[in-house]
């Protein structure tokens, strides 16, 4: 179990023995997670009858070794089940919202963290409060407003909501990043005749880059997986993002008994966030701990 990947410290057998119960618990949890995710990936390449056969894993390895794994489930899910539509929608929603969130939140976080003005503390408290407001508290008036403007089921509405809902968290997260930057940058820029707005975009914004990337990766995952708002505001196939699309697909596939197709859709939906996580897990984890710090 204690296979050393990085030999930072010499193998201390006594210490490792003492830690055995800890290793065991972690191992059980990790194996369970891998089995569940791995099984679904395997099942997505088999037919429904093979999944039900009771010897699914054997069939999977037989197909794997003879290079006869089937990808029809994916093709079918992508084309006939319209996963491609949901996928493209989610891609549009996440990329546009994530960029706009930064454009709105970064200047606000900068102003709140670097300048003293009346109302600063109040605004910061309001923003922190937004992190605890359940969606159920805001959804009804928003839906009423959107309906009366006849803007339901439009990409614009969904993107605007995603931006607005994630701005408080992003400001909150970026506050500490701007706070920790040295004031000498601004002073130097002012002496050289740079306007405050120019100073922000040319000097401070690039300096906050690590924080901005972390929070954007985090926002991407939140928006990609968002369910409640899009279920209410995106009621048509053409505008549905992946989470709601997947939910509807699963319900219909249950009746048709297309289990292989269902697992393939599940894999397609979690693949993007899963791959991002493989490469950027440290950033995402930093995003969680940074964002949870609240008073």
């Amino acid at each position, binding site marked *: 179990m204690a296979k050393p990947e990085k030999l930072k410290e010499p193998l201390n057998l006594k210490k490792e023995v003492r830690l055995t119960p800890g290793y065991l618990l972690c191992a059980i949890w990790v194996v369970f997670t891998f089995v569940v995710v791995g099984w679904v990936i395997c099942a997505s390449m088999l037919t429904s009858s093979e999944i039900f056969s009771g010897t699914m894993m054997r069939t999977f390895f037989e197909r794997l070794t003879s290079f006869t794994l089937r990808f029809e489930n994916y093709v079918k899910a992508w084309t006939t089940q319209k996963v491609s539509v949901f996928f493209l929608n989610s891609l549009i929603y996440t990329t546009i919202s994530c960029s706009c969130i930064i454009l709105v939140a970064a200047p606000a976080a900068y102003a709140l963290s670097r300048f003293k003005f009346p109302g600063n503390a109040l605004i910061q408290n309001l923003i922190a409060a937004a992190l605890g407001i359940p969606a159920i*508290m805001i959804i009804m008036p928003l839906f009423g407003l959107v309906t009366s403007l006849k803007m339901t089921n439009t990409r614009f509405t969904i993107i605007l909501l995603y931006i607005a809902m994630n701005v408080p968290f992003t400001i909150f997260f970026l506050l500490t990043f701007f706070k920790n930057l040295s004031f000498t940058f601004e002073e130097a820029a002012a002496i050289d005749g740079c306007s405050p707005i120019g100073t922000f975009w040319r000097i401070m914004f690039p300096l906050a880059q690590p924080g901005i990337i972390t929070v954007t990766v985090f926002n991407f995952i939140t928006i990609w997986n968002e369910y409640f708002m899009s279920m209410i505001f995106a009621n048509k196939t053409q505008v549905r993002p992946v*989470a709601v699309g997947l939910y509807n697909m699963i319900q219909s596939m249950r009746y048709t008994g297309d289990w292989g197709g269902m697992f393939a859709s599940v894999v397609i939906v979690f693949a993007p966030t899963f791959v991002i996580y493989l490469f950027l*897990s440290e950033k995402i984890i930093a995003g969680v*701990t940074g964002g949870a710090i609240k008073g």
Partner: protein
Amino acid sequence: MIVIFLTPALILYALVFLYPVIRTSVMSFFKVETVSQPVSEWSFYGVGNYIDLFRSNLFNVSMANILRLWLVGGVVVLAIALLFAVILTSGVRLKRFFRSVIYLPNVISAVAMGTMWLNYVYNIDYGLFNNVIKFFGGDPVMWTGPVTLFWSMAIAYGFGMVGYHMLIFISGIERIGIDYYEAAGIEGANVFQKFFYITLPLLKGVVRSNIVIWTVAIAGFFVWGQLFSPVNLSNDTVTPVNYMYELVFGASSSANTARNTGAGAAIGVMMAMLVVIVSIVTTLITRHDDVEL
């Protein structure tokens, strides 16, 4: 400059948080049928919506559901999360790997996660749990049958949340100075003494953050309830938000509920109050804590 930088954020805030919160609060004291009904057609109802809700059987069931989910689920999830946090900060190898895998369910869409649980882990024919039971010679269990549905849902949900709370505990434990542990070690304290006399007292603030975060999550509990009872509201999985969705947007085929946005708003207010009360109470209890998270 400050004005220019803050205006877009404040406009969005007013539009999506301030205005809806005020309107929902007001709406909860009026009789309102549909969401798009103009204010002129609302009629004042006092606390009538709240009284009606507490007279409704399904609402009481939904409140009981989230209260037991909050309490039992919260204690179990936070305990496991703290246990993993302590293990991972005690100098185990592969710390980053374990931490990443335990957090993994949080980056996967809840719908995808729920589908894996429902159609693999809990499946009666080829499911993981039943295969393990059969391996040990037991009888297969109907995990998503009426008796076990609620706890099956709670386990599936809690499994994902452990990683999230664990990360917050880890960052709290890492803020505690290493010298405390070294001093205790010199004095001959064992693992358990170190945990109960150093880690736990210094983690009060972090525990509080975790309780508030857990409460916020439970107050908005929705997807899992819908996933585990997709067609109609069921007594086992209904939560206040599911019930609100039924009252306001009337999605499913069950005709036992008429559209009632005023009552939906009252549910929203109660959920928000739940979060407010929990955060005030926990703040009062942990006012003098040493590690601020």
